[in-house]
């Protein structure tokens, strides 16, 4: 619960990106190889694209799938971001499909020639956006965990190594995480990379358990600031909280932030308190927080949902 709460607090505090920072998405659904996988990958990619378009302008969402998801198209898309994206921007890359690993090199299976991990790493490094989230949901994706690590980049993989080679379930659960309110642990209408990862990795484990099967994939997350990286907004949440519009509201927001910090401090002291005393103090702070939040909402109502 500690991790979850901290994640919630940080997301609440740090959700707002710099004013003109943009968020770009590149979603690639690789080669299925057989109709079932083709269909599943297309479905996952479409679900991810829906979320992306809800979260940022459609013009900043690139979706490559089916015959269009070639190596050339991937290269072209990432190269275009090299010029379009600025350092203050954020980039989300999601790779769905089959990956392979021969003990040395990772490859993403695409129609026509595959693209290898080193080339993808170079293309990603060339995109100026300092904040990046790369979700590699393919089989054997764990192979890239070390090679693709970079400052400011969060890596999420479906498998823990290149040797987990079975077709993965992670993409569909990750797509569900971005679409469902259940993954929004702190109920702020946004899903962070950490929240989505937590939800999807548990769903994957549950799905194997439900099938009575041994899990053949173990999702991983590494690097960057996943608790602050907002990867999706929920359809039910409407747009993000607008920027502070007046000194009065600014004061309220500042007061809210202080209460948030006090709650966090209280939680850290929980072990040293009796349960009754803890809950009494928690209630006092939460009531204050609710009242302040009510005033903020009244002063600048959120868009109708």
């Amino acid at each position, binding site marked *: *619960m500690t991790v*979850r*709460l901290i994640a*919630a*607090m940080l997301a*609440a505090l740090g959700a707002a990106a710099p004013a003109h920072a943009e968020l770009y998405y590149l979603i690639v659904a690789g080669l299925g190889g057989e109709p079932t996988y083709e269909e599943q990958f297309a479905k996952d990619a479409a679900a991810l694209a829906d979320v992306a378009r809800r979260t940022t302008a459609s013009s900043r969402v690139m979706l490559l799938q089916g015959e269009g998801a070639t190596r050339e198209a991937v290269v072209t898309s990432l190269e275009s971001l090299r010029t379009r994206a600025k350092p203050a921007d954020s980039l989300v890359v999601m790779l769905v499909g089959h990956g392979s690993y021969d003990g040395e090199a990772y490859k993403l299976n695409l129609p026509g020639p595959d693209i290898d991990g080193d080339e993808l790493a170079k293309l990603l490094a060339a995109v100026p956006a300092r904040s990046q989230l790369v979700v590699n949901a393919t089989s054997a994706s764990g192979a890239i965990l070390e090679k693709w690590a970079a400052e400011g980049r969060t890596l999420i993989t479906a498998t823990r190594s290149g040797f987990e080679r079975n077709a993965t379930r992670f993409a569909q659960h990750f797509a569900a995480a971005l679409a469902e*309110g*259940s*993954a*929004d*642990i*702190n*109920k*702020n209408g946004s899903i962070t990379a950490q929240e989505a990862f*937590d*939800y999807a990795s*548990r*769903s994957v484990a549950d799905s194997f358990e*439900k099938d*009575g099967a041994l899990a053949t994939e173990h999702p991983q997350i590494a690097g960057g600031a996943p608790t602050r990286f907002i990867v999706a907004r929920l359809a039910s949440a409407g747009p993000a909280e607008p920027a502070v519009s007046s000194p009065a509201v600014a004061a309220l927001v500042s007061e809210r932030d202080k209460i*948030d910090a006090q*709650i966090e401090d209280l*939680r850290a002291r929980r072990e040293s308190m009796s349960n009754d005393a803890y*809950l009494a103090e*928690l*209630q006092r702070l*939460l*009531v204050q*927080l*609710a*009242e302040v*939040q*009510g005033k903020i*909402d009244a002063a600048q109502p959120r868009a109708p949902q």
Partner: protein
Amino acid sequence: MTWRACFGAVAALAGATAAQALTIEYSLDRPEALVACDRQSYRGARAEAAACYRSLLAQSTDNRIKADAARAVGDVRGANAFFQTAINEHPDDPALRTRWGELFFATHQNNEAIKLFQEALKLDPKYAPAKIGLAKVAAGRFEDKTVEWAKQVIDESPDQALEAHLILARAALEDGSLEAADDALDEALELAEEQERSPLEIYALKASLDLLRGTTASRWTDRALQLNPGYGNAYAIPAHFYVITRRYREAIELLQKAVQIEPDLYDAHAELGINLLRENKLDEARPHLELAYRGDPFSAPLVNTLRLIDSFDNFVVTQHPPKPADPGSGAAPNPGVILRLHKDEAKVLEPYVLELVNNTIDTYTKRYGFTLEQPVIVELYPDHDDFAVRIAGLPGIGLLGVTFGYVVAMDSPTGRADASFHWGTTLWHEMAHVFTLEATNHLVPRWFSEGVSVYEEWSTGPLPGRHIPVTVLAAIKEDKFLPVAELDRGFIRPTYEAQVIVSYMQAGLICEYIAGRFGQKALERMLGEFRNGKGTAEAIQSALGISPSEFDEHFAGYVEQQLGAVLEQLEPWQQKQAELHEAVEKEDWRAAVPKAAEAIALFPDYVDEGSPYIAKARAHRELGETSLATSTLLEYRSRGGHDPDALMALARSLRDAQRADEALDVFEDVLMVAPLRAEVHREYGDLLVAANRPRDALVEYRALLAMDPQDLAEAHYRLAKTYVAVDDKAKGREHLLYALEIAPHYREAQQLLLEVVR
């Protein structure tokens, strides 16, 4: 077996040095030097016997004799070493290989034992002691080969058949064929007198025979104790027959006497410990099991049972007090219930298990006119292996649940990979055993106890309808039902693969027939006859007023009347099923619908795996025919279909069609098969709230929370809202605080908190 081949097994024996319980030797080729020591042992002169064997160990020049002498003084490791050496010296001696095999058998390494017995038979195809060895291994596994091997010895080597007669006697006693057992024991006794072999074991088996005939103070026990006052098996052998007839309390009394007069009779300590566990006497059981382990560290059931006791730390025990009869509500008296549930699932399962147990107590008390005298203990094991350990030692037992009297143990819903494991039906079945066992002081024959349980599953259990697997229908078609007076044999010593399940179903149909033809009270009268010590034949005659053969004839007519049509259509149905599955495979939904309908018409009660109802509902759904999909699943459910995914789909479609009452019933059914799915509790709870049943919804939301769902804040919020709805603001406040502790900016929770505290 070469010494190299058995290296692993030898390694397993290494380090073992244990006192040896008295073993009676019957081989005619046993060296005279050993026989002389054996005689001292048989008369209870243990110190003298030990000295005699030690003297052989020190002085004999024959490693074969040394091996047996070492084993007799409990030096398993030494015995094994002597056997290895002796095999090199006498590679063609079948007796030596057989003796070595017996050492492995005594240390529970049956595969090694079998190899050695078979090697002996290669050297001498008619070597009787090796065949006896194979018979004993088969007997430990309750295999039919036991009797085959023993009969071969009697035919081929009648003079060496003493032990073969004992094996046949044991098998006959286990089958309840008492006359046959008596004859076999008389044969054995005659040979023992002729050959001057110890009659101790024969006397103990004669005492077992008396016990099964209702004489508890047998003169044969006295005779055995006169020969050897320290012969614990005089009590332990009869105790075995109490155990297999589920009379654990009586078995415990005998086993306590056994270990009192022979404190190092480790088998008896093990049996005593296991049976004390069956009576839920954990503290008393443990020392006996630990002692047994020290004496017999090779016993896997023993080690597993000790591990199981250790694992009880992971279980939560809750006690629910007795309740007297309530004339107002008509509720029967309830003796109290104790639940032992794994800590990871106790909070989720407890309310459902308790409610179902209470329902069964009320139902069965009224239907069978018997009031339970002690609290019922119900244990659910999420790890199937733990459950398997709990039931170890019972022959032909089913694998879902077991009842030891007032103790019921079964798999929890997580204990089985099979998603459609209906824990509710299993518990309903087991609870019927509590009544049939206790109402008869455990004298009920196995078939009748199972029959009542199966019949109650079909007639009053949580799943509607009669459920007979296709394999059983095929067996009925092949005329494989047994005469009622012999039906126990189908459970205890099955002769074909499906016979145990066939016997369950036959027993269920018999009880259904009795209740329908002679009235429900006739079942109660049968229990009365069994309580008075009557066997099946007498009980049928007295309680129903017809002979067993007349009964069989009438019952066959009933089966024909009830199942004749289905039996007739079995093959066309299987053909139709194949066609249906082909259509489903091709996703040809237009073709699937009529094929499914035809399969359903041929065998409408088939709701198990591959049920045509499921295929038909899916086809309708794929074709956009939602209401037809719903009606198909309703029909499926009405016949006892319980696939959790199908039921969830049905519950949701009913809910979406505003048929809330029906949806609520279906959700309740889902809990009987998939109580550990969070979405069931969430959606059922939501529907209960919508139906203005917030108190019932609380049960579901508490279960949801106990499952540590992904969205914990929301689970707390749901619970808080419902507590507030039933005016429990304190609880509502508490859960709101927990929700907001996780998600401080959770707007709905913030609003409700303000309402609650203002």
